[in-house]
Structures are given as structure tokens and as C-alpha cells.
């Protein structure tokens, strides 16, 4: 937990791009309580914000949670602090992708049979690449 200069740079960038300030959160955990995909997450949504507050960026980089987040805006709709966590999650995803200078998903990674590809809506592919690759 070191509030280094890089942390401040990171947070400033995050605030600017998402319009959200993690310090506005008082950890009621309502986001986690309502999240439909929380069961698959290693960090709960409110913990992601807590980690942002504490500057635990390395842990966030390793976490599955931002990639599990389905951007369904349930958390944002109910947050008593009026924070849009969906935006913060996107901010974290982008930061990780940019930091690694690489994509998290490439067409080669997809292990889909031709039948599956036939059935899978185009929308699913487009959105996956939007989320996992830049």
C-alpha cells in the first residue's frame, strides 16, 4: 500500500477518463450485493474500489474481476454515493490493457467450433473484442 507518484498519476487519469472518484465510496458494498456475476469474481466489486482507494494496483492488475464485470450497470443504478462503478471497471480494464500494451483476447484464442460460430450472435463477438482488446 504505497501511495506513490505512479499511483496518483494512475488515479488522476482514472478520474479524468471515467468522471468517477473512488474516494467517494464509503464501502457499503451494495454494488457487490446486487452484482449478477459476483459469484465468479475473485475480488468483490466493492473490494475493487477499496483497492483503488488503497492504491493496490498490482493486485487489481492480477484480478479477474474487471474482466468478469458484464457492464450491466446494476451497481451504478443503486449506488448511494452516486458512483458509476461500471465506468471505473472500464477504466481499470483500459489501464491494464494499455500497461501491457497488448490485447487480452485475439481471434486465435477463441476455441469455437464452426457450429458454435454459426449460432453465436455477431454482437457477442464484437462486444468481446471491444472489451478485451483495444
Amino acid at each position, binding site marked *: 500500500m504505497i501511495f506513490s507518484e505512479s499511483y496518483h498519476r494512475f488515479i488522476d487519469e482514472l478520474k479524468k477518463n471515467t468522471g468517477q472518484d473512488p474516494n467517494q465510496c464509503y464501502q457499503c458494498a451494495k454494488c457487490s450485493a446486487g452484482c449478477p456475476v459476483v459469484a465468479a469474481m475473485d475480488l468483490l466489486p466493492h473490494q475493487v474500489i477499496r483497492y483503488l482507494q488503497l492504491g493496490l494496483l498490482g493486485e487489481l492488475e492480477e484480478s479477474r474481476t474487471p474482466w468478469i464485470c458484464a457492464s450491466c450497470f446494476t451497481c451504478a443504478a443503486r449506488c*448511494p454515493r452516486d458512483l458509476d462503478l461500471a465506468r471505473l471497471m472500464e477504466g481499470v480494464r483500459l489501464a491494464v490493457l494499455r500497461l501491457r500494451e497488448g490485447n487480452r483476447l485475439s481471434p486465435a484464442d477463441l476455441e469455437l467450433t464452426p457450429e458454435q460460430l454459426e449460432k453465436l450472435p455477431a454482437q457477442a463477438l464484437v462486444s468481446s473484442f471491444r472489451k478485451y482488446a483495444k
Partner: protein
Amino acid sequence: MPRIGVFICWCGTNIAGTVEIEQVVNAARSFPGVVYAGDYRYLCSEVGQKLIKDTIKKENLERVVVGTCSPRMHEVTFRKAVAEAGLNPYLLEVANLREHCSWVHKDPAEATPKAIALVRAAVSKASLDEPLTALMLDVEKRALVIGGGIAGIQAALDIADSGYTVDLVEKEPSIGGRMAQLEKTFPTLDCAACILTPKMVEVAQHPNINLLTYSEVEAVSGFVGQFDVRIRSRARSIDPSKCTGCGICYEKCPAKVPSEFDMELGKRKVIYVPFPQAVPNIPVIDRENCLYFKRGRCRICEKECPAEAIDFEQQDEIIERRYGVILVATGFDSMDLTGYGEYGYGQHPDVLSALQFERLFNASGPTAGQVVRLSNGRPPQRVVFIQCVGSRDIARGQNYCSKICCMFTSKQAILLKEKLPETEAYIFYIDLRTAGKGYEEFQRRAAEEYGVIYLRGSVGKVFPEGERLLVRGVDSLSGRPLEIEADLVVLAAASVPRRDAPELARLMSINSDRYNFFDEAHPKLRPVETHTAGIFIAGACQAPKDIPEAVAQAGAAAAKAVTLLSKEKLQSEACVAKVDPARCSGCLHCEAVCPYGAIAATETEERVRGELLTRTVAEVNPALCQGCGCCTMTCRSGSVTLQGYTDEQMLAEVDALCLQR
């Protein structure tokens, strides 16, 4: 040019530590009209005041300027000193050298010239000061208390016990307020009715209290000592001198509507008393729903009443009365939760607000004291309490903490466990706030003795699943998502001001905060006074409060009210506005903006080309004027001026400040 004396105070090191006193005194000697300039370590002390008084006499001073702390602190002190030396007290000017200068500067090189400029401005203004005289006004020895909850009851009793007459106005048919709706009170688990009812009866029997229930304040004018108030006492449709309170009328009444007292969970009759211990024990007919008033037929109550007390023709009564003081204790509402769709409030009968749940425990409540699910009438096996619903919520609710919910939720969980020991109770909380005598211990008892399970976290959504409610939440301490199959969900709704609070604030000319809670005059030092002299506040209309706090505040407000009532005369404001009828064009915009109703139209005569014409101009009533200055702002031609703060005086100050150093 009048003879002016200047006195600079060191205020120990408060001023002298940053301002070079000697330089200021020397500079002051050079200002026009100044015949004396001196300094003293503590001017507000007896010795300091004596210095001023002696110098006035010795130097024949006609105006006095003190360079001291803020006039809010000691203007009154120095005015008194000046008056004792035989000068009109309004011939004193205060240059604020502490708050406006020494406290905000570090560098004497900056502070000293500024202090000199402030003194120069005060001297310029003082040379234009005129003697002013305040009016002495009578004090009407009667108090009005608005709101008959526990705070209003306590305040009315305290004032009445001091020997003054009190009118207690309550909007509902009975006094008692929110406390009457409660089953038990924390942290002692006293029965609310057992401790409240005796006080209600005392109010009814007190020779100095005039109880006006089913009544509302409609208009307030006047000022401290002489408030003129119009009260509408709504027609009960029952002759109170005949009614014996036997209750046959409401037994027989065929029409039912949801009961406000039971938070709409149960029904009440259309002729009703809100609850069995009501004071006065006289029913009212709810004319909006009465079959006779709606359709012209029924009159069963009239037929059944053995005392012949029913009076369908009764009219609202308008009471116009003068009061010396007004005390506002209008209490709070439970926030409307329809904006919180995720909890299913209003969608599912087993999702209740805390105040609704409280009614389930009450023997005269909607379930006759049975704690059951309203969906099926069976006792719940698992109850989930959710705190902070609407409180601490900047998105859909109130920014503030409602303060009482942590405690009443623990209380309700304990009551539940006492009634149904096998039932599980879960409380979702964000933070537990148990500051208060015996509060922490009480909450711990709930957890340790009664086995109430506290979950630190929130609920995302309540899903109706079959007959039960699936509560999906999270315990943030363990980081575990939770799903609880519950039978009842109780929401700790935020405490909010009464819906009509803004209207009442406007009526009384008192300030409210951004949430519409009434504002105290000073958050620390004047907690029960308002900015309007003679109007006091008590209880949850000022901010969310528990019973002990509301009662304590009511006592304090009553003491303040009595202090005022005990005075024979009150001095009015001397710095009041004045109209120059020759300049006034009579547009009366000043009348429109005057918050105190102190300005009215009057006729004046003038000669135009040999002919005598009358025309309308504005006139200030000095007894009503509080010297706020709104009128002077709105007058284009400067025809209204505030005495003691005339345009000439203000300009003289500005000119003096703008002089090159």
C-alpha cells in the same frame, strides 16, 4: 465635524501580535475629526470600558470608534459603555481588527496598513453617525407551541409550569405525535405509551395550556413579543362539550379507510380517534371520506350517539391571537421509499418500513399485536432488516445520517426475538452508530444475548421467490455474497422533515437547511433559537433526533421562551429603514421584498403647478422593521435608507478604504 475618539484594543496578543498598535494609534490621530486616539490591552474589560467612559467626558467626545474584535462579540458591551458616559449608543463604530485583520494575516507589514484602513473607514462612517432611539415594545405573555409530539408536549408543559399561558396547536385529532406510534423505546425498552400517556393527560388538564388539536397555523405576522397568528381549528363535526368519548359512534360507523396512525397497514373508521389513548378523547369525522359528506346519506353516528354530540353543520373556527413567543416542534416524516424499487417496497406486502413494522407489535395495531406476515398472516421465521434506506444516499435519498435507525433497528430485532424467540433476525448495516447513554450496550445485547445477526454490508435486491423473499446481499467483512430466504424485510427509512415544513418556514420567516429541516441560529451556541427573534425550535423538525434529545431540546427551547416572556418590555431594533417621501416614486417594490411586512403604502401631498395632488409613497413601520436592508437594495432612487447604515455612510467608508496609503 464632530469630535471623535479612537480606542484600539490589543486583545492580548490576538491583535497586538500581528498589528503594530502604535502605528495604528498614530495614524488615527491624523484622521479628520479625531481629537483623541489611545490603546489598551483589553478594552472589553472593566478597566478598558472605564477608559472609554472617562475619555468621553474628559475630551468631550461626540463619536467613539473602537478597533477591537467583531461587533458580533462586543458591540453591545461598548454601546453600553458609551451610553453610560451620556452619549447616544449608536454614535459608536466598531472597526473589526481581529477577525477581519489580525487573525487572517501573518505579516504585520500587511496587517498594520489594513488595520489603519479599517479604522479610517470606521472614523469616516462615525462622523456621519446620527443618534438613534429604539422603541420599547410590549411583550404578550402568551406562548404558541406548534406540534403536539413529545417535543411540543414537553415544551408546552415547561412553559405552562412557569406560569405562562400556552396554546398548543396540533394538526392531527390527537397529540402524541410519532412517539405515540411506537411500541417500546430504546435503550430501556420502556413502553412508549406508558411514559407518554401521562404527559398527554397532563397537557389536557393543565390550567395554563389551551389545547387546539385538528388545527393548523395559517398566518403569522408581527415580531418578537407581538406575533399575530391566525389558526384554523378544523371542524371535528362533534360538539366537544357534549361528547363523552364513549366510542359508540366509531363502533357503528360503516365506512373504513387506511389508518394514518397505523402507517396505512390497518383501517380506521371515518369517524375516529387515531388511537385508544388519544388526547382529547373526542373523535373527528373525516369529511373527505364520510358517506354523509360525500353522498348525503348515512348519519348512523348521529343516530347512535347517546350524547347527541354529532354536529354535521359545525364550521371551521378561525382563531386570531397575539403571542409573545412561538415554539416550533413539528417533528418528522418517514421517507417515501417508492424510489427504492430493488427492495420491493409497495410491491410486496411483506416488505415494510420500520414504522410500519413497529405497529405490528402494538396491541391496538393492525394485527392486534401479532407479529405476522401480511401476505399470509403467519409468523415470520426469518426477518431481514436493512438500514440506511434513504439515509446517507446522495443519489436517491438524503445526504445525512438519520441517527436513530441503528438504535431502533436493534430495538425492533430485540422485540422480535422476545415475541418470537425462534425467529431469526438479520441486520444489514453499513456503520453502526450507537453514541448515547446505554446505546452501545443495548446494541451489543441484541447481538450477544438475543442472537441477532449483524451483517456489515448491503442488500442488492429482494426477489419474491414463491411465498418467500429472497434477499440477495453481501457481507463485506468476509467478502461473501449472501442469499437469505426471508419472510419479512424491514427497511429503516430515512427521517425527513414534514412535507409541509417549507411552507411553515415561509409562514414563520425562519430559515431551513437544504433538506428543509429548520435551521438553528447558531449550530453550537444558539441551538434552539432561530434567526427570527422570538421563534424557537425543538425536536426532529430541526434534524433527526431520538426521544431524549428531543425532550432535552424542548426543555431548552421552553427556557429560552420563558426568558423572553418574563420581560416587561423589549427593545426594538434602532437601525431601521426610513423612507424619504419626496424622493419615493411609490413603486412599492420595497413592500414586495420586505420579509417582515414592515412596509406599507401611505398617501402624501405635494403641490404641482399650484395644484395640491396626493400620491402614494412607501412608509416603514419601525416596530416591525428588523433592519435587514432588503428595501434599500431594491429602491432605485435610494429613497429608502437604513438608519445607521445610510448610503452616505457606506460610501464614506468605501472612500476611506480606497484612499491611497
